[in-house]
Each structure stands twice: as C-alpha cells, then as structure tokens.
C-alpha cells in the first residue's frame, strides 16, 4: 500500500538542507533587476508619469508603464485591473472635442469600458523599472515623477453603497460587483413559528496571508523562445493565460514554471509578479528578476475579505431550527479578483451546516479603495461560519441547551435540502464529525492543560463549533484536472513518470501525487518520478485551492495510470496515457432564489476550544483545541495532521491576533512587527487532530478535500469559549485584548 502511510515528503530533504530553490533563489547569467513603483495613494487620477530623469540614469534599461502593456488588464474572474498605469491625459482633437487617452479601449481588451488612468488602492503598480542592478532600479524608481490628482477615497463598505457615492470603478455601478439572493421556504412564516430568536450584527477583519516567501520570480526567454516565468503561484495554466492575455501572445508562446513555493493559502491565486516579469523579459529579451520585500508583499497582494453581517436565527423551544435570515456584505477593494466567488461561498455557508426550512440570504460584494481582497484559505466560509456558529451558540445559550445536542438535532444529513433547495451531495458527515469531536472531549477530559496565566483574574471556558465547505470549483465554473503517466521498461515496469501541473505550495501535494500514482500502478514509490508544475510538460491541473488538489489530482492520476497500464498490456513502450478528470457538473445560483447545485461535494469539520482569559488584560490563551475533520481517506496521515495543526494556528491568528489595519485606504500594518501573526509560543498547548475517514462517494478511494476545513470554525469555537469563561459575546474579529476588555467593561458597567 502506498496510501494511508506517512511517507516522508519527497521535498523534505532539499527543504531542510536548503537545497530546494524558491523563486528568489534562482538566477540566470546576464539577468536584470526590476522594481515596482507603487502608488501609495488610495485613489487618484494619474495625470502624467515623467520617467525621463530615471531613464537617464546609467544602468537603467527600461521603465514600463501601462502604455507598454499590450492589453493592460488582468483578473482571475474578470479583467478589471490594470497591470501597470497609463496616465489619463485629456487632449483636444482638431475639431475641438475633448478626449481622454486612457478612455480609448484597447481593441484586444474584453471590456468595453476602460478603467485605466486611475490608481484605486495603495498597492497599485504604477511603473516597473528594470536596471542592471537592484540598487540602480531602486534608485531610479525614486526619480520617476508621477503627477497625481487625488480623489476622495471610499474606504467603508457602508459608505460605498450610499446613493450618490463616488464610483470607485466604472464597471461596477453603485459600487456593487455582485449580489446574491437566496430564498428557501417562507422566512417570515418561519420566524412566526419561532419560540426563540437570536439576532445580532457581526464584523470580521481582513487577514494577510503572511506566507514565508514574499513574491519573487524570474522572467526569461527559454530555449524555444517562449517567454517564461519562474514564480510561486497556485495554478500554472491560469498564470500562463493571464500573461498571454496581457502580452497579447498565443498561449504556446508563454511558459510558467513553479519551483519550490513558500506558502500560498490563496494569496498567490491572483497575479503579483507574473505579468510584469513576462513583460520585461519579452520586451528586453533578457532575464529579469524581481524580489519583493515583506512590506511590498503586504501591500502587493490581496487580503481576506472583511465582512459585515446582520443575522437572525429562530428555533422552537425544543431546539428545532425554523428560520434563518442573513444579510452580508464583503469589502472587495477596487477590483473583482475572486470576490464574486468568495461571496457565493459565503452565501452558501451563511447559515451553517443545518437543515433549516425557511431561509433568506442577501449578500453583496462592494468596491472600495481599500486593498483588493480575494482568495484566502476558507474562501468566504470562515467569515460566514463565524456568524452562523456564533448564532447557534447564542441560541443554545438562550435555549439552555447543550450546543452539541442542538447541532446534532439540526445537522444536514444525506437527503437534506441545503439553502440552495437541492439535496446536499451524498456522503454528508457533519453529524459524524460533531459526534467524534464531542466524544474526544468526553473521553479525554484529563488532558486539559493547566493554566499558563495562573492568576486569580483568569477564567477558563470551552466552546464548540462545526462547519462545512465546498471542495472544488463552484457555481458551474469549468472544473477538471489532467494527468499524464508514462511507463518505462521492457518486461516489467522499471520506472513510471507522472506529469502533473499541480502546485505544491508547501502542503505536500507532490508527495500525494507520488503516493497515489504508486497505489494506482501497484509500484513502490521509489519507481515513481514526478515532473511537476511546468506548463510546457503538463496539462491543466486547475489550482491548488478550494481544498481540491488531492481530490481532483487523485482522480486524474488514477485515470491516467489505468489508461497507461492498458497500453502497457498492449505492449506499447513506453506506455503513455493522458487523462482528464471531470467531476459532476455544478450550477450557478438562480438570481431570485439561489436555487442551484452549487458544489461537487463538501468537507466537514467540528472543533472544540478551551481558552483561558485574563479578565484584567483581555488576553486570551487557547489551551486546547480538538479538531475532528472528515478527510475521507488520509493518503498521508502525517500531512493531514500537518494541515490540521497549521490550519488551526492560522485560524487562531485570524481570530485573536491578526489585526490588519487600514486607515483612509493606507495600510498601517505593513510590517510583521505591527501585523502580528502567531509565533510558536502562541500555539495551543494541545492540538488534537481527530482524523475521521468516511469515504466520499465522489472521491477516488473515498478521498475528501480537507486543507481549508481546520481553519473554518476556530473563531466561533474560541468566541464561544470566551463567552463560557466570561459571559461576554464578542461579535467582531479579531478579538484583540483591547476589544475584549472593552466588552468586559461594558458588561461590568451595566451590571
């Protein structure tokens, strides 16, 4: 058996010894160096960009602006963001008519209305300087003179949707990118039946991915003359497409390679250095390298969506849920990125994993002049589940009912109708993970670690939460994954080569690919050779996101392996087969009702948190966290536990520590000394991973996606534990010490 064993990661040795090369470690002879000139202004019209002084500096090779980008736009879902900035120049034609140069749409661009000439957030890339050395590039960058006309910055979602509010982006009238409307049953009639209703307003903050490796890369022309970018990303073929679009090149003229990747978590789904490196290398016909500083990384890529919620939940006296209503709004920043998809997910998960007969959800994602927001582990589900689960915990308190019992009474089960009025995909195991998590706490109460704070002002409490999230792309988005398997040898298979584009962002995907291939081919893992993450050698894998890579790639590798074995039987040498896995189709939500089959399948998780609160300082320590996650089949149990432990810690950061502050569109936490992520000392004393293995009917060998699940419900479990300890509900994330102290004081004053 090659699966179900904790095979040491195939990249463990090179990473530990430092042999592994990350994008910033790779160099080519004759390479030039690039620096980005950032806007540092949240909203301004760019009247002119004067590059003459910078251009004249010895050693400067080129300065690119939006005028140099053939099709100056990018975006994962829609092309609505400029690669670089073209100045907005108003000029008069001979017949006296006023024209703005930047408003002339490029015929290649897909959008009728141009959006150029304006910077809409502080991390906008105005220009790219390329020079013989990094120092010259940095110095020349300071010599570029940009003439800005500052515009008022819209930095609040609520302000953005006011009638008459300044329009942030011409594509989004009313400053709304997308809204969803979900109606199931009759929500008014539902609330009329309710004995108890809980209602509250919630807010969740932005989060920075803070991956170890800030953005870096190398652009060059390969031996076939293709513009090639070595970079860290999540989807080689998507990067390739966006580069080809912006440079107006055929796809086969563009190549993307991922070396070792230092973390991603959704933060590398949208373009960072990909297009600008390709542009510079293509124009200059020589290698060009860039490395962003941590501070550039923090303003240079999107964040987790801040979200606002107003939620009502109604139940009968016995705990039966009868109605749920949620209004929610997310701050997209000025460009779409993946905001509409994240909003869709937040909508589907907005009332939690429960069977509720009457539901109304209205959601919208709004443009502002804050930093763009997009994919981040959980993709909208953590925000919604914080609210849905806190509502459930408040309901349990109001009903004086055990939170576990309340959940089990209402949990989705196979056959239940979701908010989308269609049955939950078969294999729904939310009740199972709830029971497993609860059982672990019951069976092992003695493991409670003793207090770290040990002061008379500390209080200990425990909280519970659970949740679900889609695995794979949603809402009818094209979803597939390709693999190629090549078998070498004569009478026996001596060596198998697997070609797969899937990104190993540090989660261990490549090790999983090797294990799955070995299993499918019934070969020892040593005989599997993996050629990975290069558009020149592999078909499209889709992204390493949405907890989908193990789920999708296993199907693809199994398919390719079986096809190759058939050819091997037919005596083809080498036997080579290509396979494309296409999962069951999904569909978009109906605009009026939300009716849909939005997702292929879901992952399920339940958590219990035990915290100690210092009621005098507001500091929260998480003492113990139990996470039960149904992974279907653990291909590599050690990596599964790694994902659980990492996801829990990342969730704790978002819950209690990571306070990403933007004021008037400016980032005030652009250093890791002011944006505090958990350190090794902040990890709970005990993190117990309960690996549940109920096969998913859709999964190869029963595999379920799991990478995001451990993060999903850390926040509501911790917030419930804080309530258990102190009697205070906190409705805003992160729960900073000061926020909690304020809440405690408010309660003390009113008592």
């Amino acid at each position, binding site marked *: 058996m090659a699966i179900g064993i904790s095979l040491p990661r195939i990249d463990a040795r090179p990473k530990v010894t430092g042999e592994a090369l990350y994008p910033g470690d790779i160099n080519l002879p004759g390479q030039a160096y690039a620096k980005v000139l950032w806007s540092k202004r949240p909203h301004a019209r760019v009247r002119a960009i004067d590059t003459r002084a910078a251009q004249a500096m010895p050693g400067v090779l080129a300065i690119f602006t939006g005028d140099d980008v053939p099709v100056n736009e990018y975006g994962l879902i829609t092309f609505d963001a400029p690669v670089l900035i073209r100045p907005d120049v108003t000029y008069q034609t001979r017949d006296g008519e006023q024209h703005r140069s930047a408003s002339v749409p490029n015929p290649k661009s897909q959008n009728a209305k141009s959006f150029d000439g304006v910077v809409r957030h502080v991390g906008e890339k105005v220009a790219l300087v390329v020079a013989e050395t990094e120092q010259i590039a940095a110095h020349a960058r300071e010599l570029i003179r940009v003439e800005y006309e500052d515009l008022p910055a819209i930095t609040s979602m609520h302000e953005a949707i006011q009638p008459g509010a300044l329009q942030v982006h011409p594509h989004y009238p009313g400053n709304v990118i997308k809204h969803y409307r979900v109606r199931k049953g009759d929500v008014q009639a539902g609330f009329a039946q309710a004995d108890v209703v809980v209602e509250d307003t919630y807010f969740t903050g932005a989060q920075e991915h803070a991956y170890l490796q800030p953005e870096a890369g190398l652009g060059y022309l390969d031996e076939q003359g293709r513009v090639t970018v070595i970079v860290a990303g999540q989807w080689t073929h998507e990067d390739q497409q966006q580069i080809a679009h912006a440079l107006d090149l055929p796809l086969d003229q563009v190549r993307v390679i991922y070396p070792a990747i230092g973390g991603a978590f959704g933060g590398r789904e949208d373009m960072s250095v990909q297009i600008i490196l390709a542009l510079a290398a293509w124009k200059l016909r020589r290698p060009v390298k860039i490395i962003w500083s941590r501070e550039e990384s923090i303003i240079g890529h999107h964040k987790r969506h801040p979200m606002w919620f107003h939620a009502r939940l109604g139940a009968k006296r016995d705990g039966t849920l009868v109605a749920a209503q949620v209004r929610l709004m997310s701050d997209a920043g000025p460009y779409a990125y993946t905001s509409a998809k994240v909003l869709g997910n937040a909508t589907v998960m907005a009332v939690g994993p429960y069977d509720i007969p009457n539901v109304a959800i209205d959601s919208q994602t709004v443009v502002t002049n804050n930093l763009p927001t997009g994919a981040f582990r959980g993709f909208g589900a953590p925000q919604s589940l914080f609210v849905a689960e806190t509502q459930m915990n408040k309901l349990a308190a109001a009903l004086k009912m055990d939170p576990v019992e309340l959940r089990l009474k209402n949990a989705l089960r196979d056959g239940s109708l979701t908010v989308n009025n269609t049955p939950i995909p078969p294999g729904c195991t939310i009740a199972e993970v709830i029971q497993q998590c609860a059982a672990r706490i019951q069976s092992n109460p003695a493991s409670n670690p003793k207090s770290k704070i040990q*002061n008379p002002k500390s209080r200990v409490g425990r909280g519970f939460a659970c949740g679900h999230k889609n695995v794979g792309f949603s809402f009818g988005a094209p979803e597939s994954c390709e693999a190629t398997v090549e078998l070498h040898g004569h009478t026996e298979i001596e060596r198998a080569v697997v070609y797969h584009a899937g990104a190993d962002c540090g989660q261990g995907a490549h090790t999983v690919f090797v294990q799955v291939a070995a299993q499918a081919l019934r070969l020892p893992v040593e005989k599997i050779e993996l050629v990975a993450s290069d558009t020149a050698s592999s078909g499209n894998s889709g992204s390493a996101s949405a907890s989908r890579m193990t789920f999708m790639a296993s199907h693809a590798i199994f398919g390719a392996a079986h096809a190759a074995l058939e050819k091997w039987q037919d005596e083809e040498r080498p036997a080579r087969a290509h396979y494309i896995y296409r999962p069951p189709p999904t569909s978009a939500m109906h605009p009026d009702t939300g009716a849909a089959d939005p997702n292929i399948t879901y992952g399920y998780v339940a958590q219990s948190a035990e915290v100690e609160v210092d009621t*005098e*300082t507001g*500091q929260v320590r998480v003492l113990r966290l139990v996470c039960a996650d149904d992974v279907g089949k653990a291909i590599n149990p050690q990596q599964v536990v790694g994902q659980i432990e990492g996801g829990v810690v990342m969730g704790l950061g978002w819950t209690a*520590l990571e306070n990403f*502050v933007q004021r008037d569109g400016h980032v*005030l*936490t652009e250093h890791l*000394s*002011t944006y*505090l992520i*958990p*350190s*090794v*000392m*902040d990890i709970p004393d005990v993190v117990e991973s309960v690996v549940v293995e109920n096969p998913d009917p859709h999964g190869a060998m029963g595999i379920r996606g799991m990478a995001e699940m451990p993060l999903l419900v850390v926040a509501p479990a911790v917030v419930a534990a804080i309530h258990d300890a102190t009697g205070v509900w906190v409705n805003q994330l992160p729960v*900073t*010490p*000061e926020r909690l*102290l304020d809440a405690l004081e408010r309660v003390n004053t009113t008592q």
Partner: protein
Amino acid sequence: MQPFTYAAPTSLAETITLLGQNGEQARVLAGGTDLLVQLKENRRQAALVIDVKRIPELNVLSYSVRDGLRIGAAVSCQRICAEPAIRQAYPGLIDAVALIGGAQIQGRASLGGNLGNASPAADSIPALIVHHAVCEVAGPAGPRDIPAEAFCVGPGKNALQPGELLVSIRIPPPPPRFGAAYLRFIPRNEMDIAVTGAGVSVVLNEAGDTILSARVALGAVAPTPLLAQEAGAALAGQPVTPDVIEQAARIAQRAAQPITDMRGTAAQRKHLAYVLTRRALEQAIARA
C-alpha cells in the same frame, strides 16, 4: 541598504577619537538588532558604523556579592542570562533581559544597545532603573556616570554628548530583602514590542511586612522609560498589604502619559500600567 564605512576599533581611545571626528555621521554598532534594521529602512543615517564588540571594556561581565554587577555595553542578552549567579541575584533584571527577541536575537542584542536606541518601549530600561543602574560613559572630556533613568531623553535620543560612548552598566549589589520584577504586556507570547511595561523593586524590613523603599518604572507610556517616583514614594514605609499595592499601582497609572499608536490606545496603556505595576509589585514582594 545605504552604503557606509565600517570600523571595528579595539580600544576606547580609538573609538572616542573616531566618534569625535565623525560626529552625527557615526553610529555605534553592538548587536545591530536595532541599528541595521533602521539603516535598511532609512530611519537612521550613518556614514560610519563603529563596531564596538572588539573593545575589552565593553565585553566585561562581572558579578560579586560585594561589588554588584557590571555589564559591558556590548555584552549579549544571552551571555547575561547564561550566568547562574546573575540569574539568582537579579531575577527582576533577567525578567526583562530574557524577553528581548527570540533565541537568535538574544545572541546578538545587548543592554548597551537597548539603552542607546532609547526606545520608549525598551524592555530592559525600566528594569535597569528599578535596580538603580548607572550608565558608565567615556568621552573626550573623560568618564562620567549617568543614572539609567536619565539616560534616555526622548524617543530614539539618549543623553550621550558628541564623542561619548556607553561603556558599561553598573548595578549595585542587592541589599537584604530586595525584590524586583519586570512585566510587559504584548498581544502574543513572544517577540513583540511592549504595549506597556512595568518594572518595580522593593526593599522590605527584616520581618518582611513593611516596605522600606521602592521604585516603579514604566515603559511605553511616555517619550522615555519613566521613573514613577510618586509611586515609589507612596510605598516607602508602608505595610505590605493589598491596599498599599493597589494605591501605588493607581499612582503609577496616573503617572503614565501614553499616546495612541498601532500597538495600543492611550486608555489601554494607562489601564495596563495599573495592572502590570500591581502584579509586578506582588511578584517583587514575593521575591524579596
């Protein structure tokens, strides 16, 4: 990083000459944990960086029951914390010294550098103040002593005159029934800059029921680490009771004049000055 000239003199005299010749253009480098970051980010300028780690006087680390403790300005936190005798005699100082950075930073960072950098939030300075530490300075006009509480004169500014160098820090031997403690508040558990810090020391009578004298010093609540003399005075001659401790902590809270910044609001800092002073006093009394 900005280009600079690097010098590594081996004598005090040579260093003082270099400092005198280069004036504001020169910066002293001990561990570099503050200076190198500041140079990289253009928050400080330097044409000449003088590495003082090769000067014998700045590497002294000596302790005796009779003479107390002398810490050379370039001695790393790690060296201080590794000395059992120092740990035993000055646990309240170790509270602060052990908090500065993670293991790697501990191996580089020096108390001299922490003083020289003169951050209002520096962890070691309130602890040094309550231990009656004296900064031993050398310069063109000869040696002089500056009490720790007078060493910082503003955010990032210290009392050294042009050409002067901090050589070492002298801490008197602890008197009988002396106890000290330093506590700080940070949102996470390590490697962060204090939102507020509180150092305290007490000397108790033989019976241990009366406070003979006390010092309270606060960090991150004023432009410099702050000796809250009123709080110390309020404790002197008082019995060891929760009320006395409570009142002194409230006085420290009133003495705090913090600002609101990324790490905390003024209100939170004033509140923390009270909580931390009270808790540090309880700990110091227990150690005395």
